[in-house]
């Protein structure tokens, strides 16, 4: 039992921390090479809306309009001279900015990014205020007295008695 306790001591946690950092470093920095063309086409087409469908991306849609855009993306990928962003910009030029499924981070569209951040801040600040108030209330009450414990014990005894009846 004591050995188990010792096993759970802080040095074991330190070893665990080092193992996690090492594994994450190895895994996240390993070079798996560039995406294969199929995966790159999928990745770009996921970010483009089908111009004539209802709420589908070019990746999901099987509409001829989507097939045409996918063919355009495929040609650009196999051409190999443009980056993903350049291919997206070229599609936005041809079909209009509304085909891009990721809203921009400027102007009115920035709200879609800013509001969740504001929501998170409000949640965190709200929690901070709530805990501060609860802590102040607890401090004002002080520790429970012996009388308080007696009252609780009496109530428990009463209930136990009721349960046995």
């Amino acid at each position, binding site marked *: 039992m004591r050995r188990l306790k010792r096993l759970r001591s802080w040095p*074991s946690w330190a070893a665990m921390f080092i193992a996690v950092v090492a594994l994450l470093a190895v895994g996240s920095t390993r070079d798996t090479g560039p995406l294969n063309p199929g995966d790159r086409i999928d990745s770009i087409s996921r970010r483009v809306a089908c111009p004539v469908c209802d709420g589908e*991306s070019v990746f999901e849609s*099987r509409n001829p309009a989507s097939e045409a855009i996918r063919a355009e993306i495929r040609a650009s990928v196999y051409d190999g001279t443009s980056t993903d962003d350049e291919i997206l910009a070229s599609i936005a030029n041809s079909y209009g900015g509304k085909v891009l499924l990721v809203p921009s981070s400027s102007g009115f569209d920035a709200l*879609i990014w800013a509001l969740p951040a504001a929501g998170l801040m409000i949640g965190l600040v709200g929690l901070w205020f709530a805990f501060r108030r609860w802590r102040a209330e607890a401090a004002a009450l002080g520790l429970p007295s012996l009388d308080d414990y007696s009252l609780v014990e009496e109530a428990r005894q009463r209930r136990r008695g009721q349960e046995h009846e």
Partner: protein
Amino acid sequence: MSAALGNAGLLVTLVASSVGALATAVAIIGGNRRALRQAPIYAAIIVGGATLAVIAMQWALFARDYSIDFVQRVGSSTTPTLYNVAAMWSALEGSILLWVIVLALFTGGGALRFVRRRDDELVAWALVVMYVVMTFFALVSFGPASPFAPGATVPVGFDGPGPNPLLQNHVLVLFHPPLLYLGYVGFTVPFAFAIAALITGRVGEGWLLETRRWALFSWGLLTIGILLGGWWSYEVLGWSGVWAWDPVENASLLPWLTGTAYIHSVLVQQRRGMLRVWNLSLLVATFALTILGTFLTRSGVINSVHAFAAGEIDGYLLGFFGIVVVISLGLIGWRGDALRAPGRIDSPISREGAFLANNVVFALFAFIVLLGTVFPLLVEVFQDRQTVVGAPYFDRLSMPIGLILLFLMAVAPVLPWRTASAGTLRDRLFWPAWCGVAALAVAVAVGADRLAPLVAFMLGGFAGGAAGRQLVLATRRQGLRGLVGRANGGMLVHIGVILIAVALAASNSYTHSATLTIERGERVEWAGHSFEFVGVSTEVTARADVVMADVLLDDSKVYAPAVTTYLQQGMTVPTPSVRSGFTSDVYLTIDGNDPPAIDADEIVLRVFVKPMVLWLWIGGAVMAIGTVLSALPSKRSRRPTDPTSAPMPEMQHG
């Protein structure tokens, strides 16, 4: 005949629910106990009326009664019987009728469950609320969205087009919508009790205990409904995904998120008598979001691939949503003083602190999903231009939220109520944390890369270890009964969620795809698999022509991705063929716009290799089992007044 019977059934439902609401409310206010005892009778009449309407609709679909407009649009002599049953919910009017029957059954179930307490004011007001909700839906179904409206005169020999081909292409359409509706509508019962508690002023924990299983049952059905929708998408739509952040999918996720927050935070109220306003607000939000979601997706204000059922009831739904929100918030404000909880949360590092954090994260998640869903509408209103918000936005923001939730799932189960010491955390988290390290090590060993999925696997192992620890301790104490009850069944649900989260992280991060052009008889190798084009086969029926490309996969079995042309609609639907496995799926499709000819020399095959997809469905099954187990009573039930697990502070003598 069918139309007359159906209309009669809906009229009976409408009259019984509206008279029931009025008569019960008058009986409560006037203290008329005799009239109160009759309140559940209206529920029985409602069930009878709604059942009659559904039977009439099913008969009309079965008999192809083309005197009815709805049957003209979704009926067809070529539709197989099972899909003919499902045709009822393939368009707006039938969906609302499905809502009516499910709500009627819940209202009847609620009335039956509490029939012995029918003269209790809380139960009676809850019945009034359910009757009012029933009145609204019966009114919509009898009026603007009537499934029994007469159709135009049709020529002799007329045959309808049948349901949308996507809705007669897989057996899951029989289960996915009804289960989703059971989940949506089921929340009406706890919502009704919450409103009844506010009206009567009995805002303690009694109404929560009464409705705990109803909320859990509805949440479980909603969960299964959503997962079956993902499965349907995977098996039918041909893009190899399960979730596209489509507005209709988001509309089902919103009440699930607030409902999930509720079934966690309600534990704090049951145990500590706290978070009363918050819990009421979550329940109101869950119910209201089902109405808002229906409005958003059925009104056509937001486009969706699921728009099988757009119609003209947006004003009714929006009005009802507004009434629900205003009345609920008004009642919460009115009972503000009574709702003030006497206790406090002592420390953020405690079970209730973790539940609170969980609730903030779920509320933020729901806010993001709602914002992303309605943002195109806001842009159109304020800027008069069109925009689309799609999966990349939701993926980017939901990923960190998912990781935080996995972390909370790992830590919360080991936290005691009230407060936790560093020593307690160190002892209780030790083995779960090592499970996380082991999961990470396995992921790295099998070649996983990129930080986000690696962190997801690590946290998945950590959370799985915490849930497993809890179950091991419980089963050591109580044997198999240790798997039953709120806390232990809940841990099984957590394991299901973790399996789904890990499967999603793996399949979203490590899917590979390619478009292969293969000549007849040629064998092509890609991503460790071989594909041989064997030939093209066809299947011709009165309903559809099916063209299948037979592909020998890994020299073992022939798979046949197909393109089905539905003759009545003239619409082609590609159907994927999938080889499922515990480590990965191989998903094959062919282009629906250009199906191969019977003597084609080559095919263009789209191939996806998707890791761990099977674990999504296994996780869903585990969640379903866990939900059932957590609804069963455990051996040792704690009361809110039982001593808590935190050590008592030192006594002050004097």
